[in-house]
């Protein structure tokens, strides 16, 4: 009897599990699928009722408009894209350059004040972005940085740094210090030991940190909206908002723009997510 009860129990749970997963997949995928489906419809087909998933006459017109520099809309859009690539890349490179030594020091050295300093870096994550928006806006204005990419890069750096430092520190903690000690005995300086031995071993952590910083920069909206006024300096998220207000009824165009904006980060993340998730979970949960 017990056996059959367990069997039944298992089946009910198993079924519930599959239904739940199916629901989750649908819930997750639906907006992305609908985004793409709308983007290949004509403006007229997009508002047809009842809505259909596969348009009878799919068109990639929106994409060619957005991605061709020949027309003003495309020119504008490519400009946003270029700005986003620049700001995100600069943030990523600078972020890694700053985070690596800091994480290494927090992991290996025992200077006074190490723990309070480490905590003060982490505490950044408790602060609401809007709290910093006003003073930073005034600060940037004071230094004449409003309407420059530098204002965004500086701000995004601080968003990314705490997590980057913490992720990388987790990586360095897991590398046995004996490796450096051996290198030191062989005559390497402290910096050489770090550069030649530790850095190559922490490449997965660097990749994770870099993806994170890049996605942050790519997606950020609030500061980009507040600090940048000139249209030719705007990044994608703000550009998308501008699109929306300018071409309010052109849903296929807006969805195509959203799709183009989402593809790079989604692909980047899907390709590298294993690294990322592992790095995150090793630091956050395991240790």
């Amino acid at each position, binding site marked *: 009897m017990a056996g059959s009860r367990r069997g039944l129990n298992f089946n009910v749970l198993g079924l519930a599990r599959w239904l739940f997963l199916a629901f989750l997949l649908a819930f*997750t995928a639906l907006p992305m699928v609908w*985004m793409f489906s*709308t983007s290949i419809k004509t403006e007229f087909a997009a508002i047809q009722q009842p809505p259909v998933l596969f348009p009878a006459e799919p068109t990639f017109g929106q994409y060619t408009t957005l991605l061709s520099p020949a027309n003003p809309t495309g020119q504008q859009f490519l400009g946003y894209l270029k700005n986003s690539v620049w700001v995100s890349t600069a943030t990523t490179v600078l972020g890694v350059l700053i985070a690596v030594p*800091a994480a290494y*020091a927090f992991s290996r050295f025992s200077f006074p004040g190490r723990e309070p300093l480490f905590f003060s870096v982490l*505490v950044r994550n408790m602060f609401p972005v809007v*709290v910093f928006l006003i003073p930073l806006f005034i600060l940037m204005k004071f230094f004449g940085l409003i309407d420059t990419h530098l204002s965004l890069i500086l701000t995004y750096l601080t968003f990314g740094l705490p997590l980057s430092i913490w992720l990388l520190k987790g990586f360095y903690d897991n590398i046995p210090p004996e490796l450096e000690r051996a290198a030191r005995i062989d005559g390497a300086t402290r910096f050489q030991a770090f550069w030649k031995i530790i850095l190559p071993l922490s490449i997965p952590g660097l990749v994770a940190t870099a993806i994170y910083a890049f996605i942050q920069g790519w997606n950020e909206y609030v500061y980009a909206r507040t600090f940048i006024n000139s249209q030719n300096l705007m990044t994608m*998220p703000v550009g998308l908002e501008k699109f929306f207000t300018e071409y309010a009824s052109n849903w296929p165009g807006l969805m195509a723009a959203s799709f183009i904006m989402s593809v790079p980060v989604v692909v980047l993340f899907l390709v590298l997510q294993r690294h990322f998730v592992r790095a995150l979970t090793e630091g956050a949960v*395991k*240790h």
Partner: protein
Amino acid sequence: MAIAEAPALAVRRAPVAVPARETLGRRITRHWADYLYVLPALLVMLVVIGYPLVYTVWLSFHATPPRTGEWVFNGTQNYQDILSGPRFWRITMNTIYWTVGSTLFAFILGFGAALALHNPFRGRGVVRALLLIPWVVSAVAAAYVWRWILHSDYGLVSGMLRSWGVIDRPLVLLDSKSYVMPTLIAVNVWKEFPFVMVMLTAGLQTVPEGLLRAARIDGASTWDQFWHVTVPHLKGVILITTLLLFVGNLNSFTLVWLMTGGGPANASQLWITEIYNIAFRSLQYGMASAFSVILFIIMLALGYFYVKALTMNAPRREG
């Protein structure tokens, strides 16, 4: 990306014991080179965080009329104005509703996903990766696609329900005072449940299989195993994850701002969107700063629990 709020962890590997007689000053000079490594990070943090923080507090005690540009000390007037403002309790209730609702449902869904994906099956990696997508997609793109899906006249949801005969009038969600909050919460849950999934997937991997087997041998049901073995083991991770979600939601701006802008008639106005309005629509920096300080104090209280939760959790990590 809720993960922005993720860091955790007390510093382990206590410093090597230093002879007790050495003074702090000497220790600092002996380690001077170590500081060079952390200096760039600290400088950036100091300029972009330390300074603004102090400045916000200072500003919150000043009247900052946008016209004259002359900022005058006015004591706690800004705070009084906020707390007695006609909308204050309304948006406070909205904020609580939004934060608690989002956190709760994102947690349930994310934990459920982690559990459902715990046992391996063919294609599990793909499913897991797909479920992570909403988390990476920009909040701006997410806001617009959901606006489009939920559009009352041409949207997918309204259109399908009508063609199936479930409703006979356009379904108004984002423009309805009573439906706007639940709808926004649903979209927010879509965006952030993957974060919970990631955290708890990792947590589940640390539950010792032997313990579960022992419980099974002792005749514990699936539920008993879950409730008496898995959940207690995950307590630390659950605590950190919910806290991070909570703070993330209290701070989240973009989705609500772009989907409703706080409307209709302030039905979805939150503290964060209100602060933005006060600062950048009405240009009352002093007032907005005071509001930020209030929010900041709440964060600080939460941060205290956060650190406590982390240190409480720390000893087990050693094992």
